[in-house]
């Protein structure tokens, strides 16, 4: 598989993603500078974490207008798998590839710690290697992860099983205390209506190796690869 990792000025998890897909999961990785206008020959795209454009104005607000984002949009509209992690999730929201917006963390703090998330839907292109209801431990590191959307959109997300991960306790209870940022309905990750775009605040690439003490995040990345392997045709030109 060939995975493209986008690189914006200010991305800082791009090399972590490259390392995990390449060295841990044995895939080809192409780093894609934000000024590129095409993303041909890729099987999947990762929008990594960081502080694209310094997060000026709003997180992801300027990155979404980078030339590469038109190509990513087209790739996603053609069914390509796109995963946005942390700042990548924020960019996907600003780009309208996922519904909703991010507010400042309720605590106003930058929160950097391991959290527990419950797999709410294990039948997605990004969670196939997980069990339904499985609790994963994955670190978060953000100041704007307080997911918000209007009540109608939220109801739609819930009804269509688009909520993929929710913050929970170590034994899988979704509580206000387990929510690190105040996000609506404890949402940690959602997918698009079509199912091929995922945004999540926790960083699976930071918890993908036993050597680092935790490999739960690898399940998410492996799930994406497994889904790609099941796809009959390679995306061409998209």
């Amino acid at each position, binding site marked *: 598989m060939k995975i493209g990792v986008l690189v914006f000025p200010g991305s800082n998890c791009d090399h972590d993603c490259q390392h995990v897909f390449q060295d841990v999961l044995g895939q080809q990785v192409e780093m894609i500078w934000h000024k590129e206008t095409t993303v041909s020959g890729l099987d999947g795209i990762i929008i990594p974490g960081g502080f694209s454009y310094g997060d000026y104005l709003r997180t992801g607000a300027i990155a979404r207008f980078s030339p590469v984002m038109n190509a990513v949009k087209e790739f996603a509209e053609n069914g390509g798998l796109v995963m946005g992690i942390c700042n990548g999730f924020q960019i996907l929201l*600003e780009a309208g590839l996922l519904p*909703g917006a991010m*507010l*400042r963390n*309720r605590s106003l703090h930058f929160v950097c710690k391991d959290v527990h998330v419950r797999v709410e839907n294990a039948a997605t292109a990004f969670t196939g290697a997980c069990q339904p209801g499985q609790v994963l431990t994955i670190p978060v590191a953000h100041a704007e992860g307080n997911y918000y959307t209007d009540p109608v959109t939220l109801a739609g997300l819930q009804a269509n099983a688009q909520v993929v991960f929710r913050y929970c306790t170590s034994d899988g209870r979704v509580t206000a205390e387990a929510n690190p940022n105040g996000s609506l309905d404890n949402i940690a990750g959602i997918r698009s209506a079509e199912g091929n775009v995922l945004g999540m605040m926790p960083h699976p690439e930071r918890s993908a190796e036993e050597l680092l003490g935790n490999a739960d995040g690898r399940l998410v990345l492996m799930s994406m690869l497994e889904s790609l392997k099941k796809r009959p045709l390679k995306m061409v030109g998209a």
Partner: protein
Amino acid sequence: MKAKIHVTLKQGILDPQGKAIEHALDSLGFKNAANVRVGKYMELDVNENDKAKAEVQVKQMCEKLLANTIIEEYRYELT
């Protein structure tokens, strides 16, 4: 024309920064200060003398980039 643009979180959306400032004002003794909302202020020049035309452009700027209308509202003055 000069555009002066204010962007704030919509009413009803929790503004944690506003709350923190409100608490600070309270602890300074400003007991009658309430409902603090924090926003952004931007000003820019639009190379356009026709106010109506400039307004169309500023509105587009706000809708497309300067405000995220899911969570924010904006207002502007053109002079």
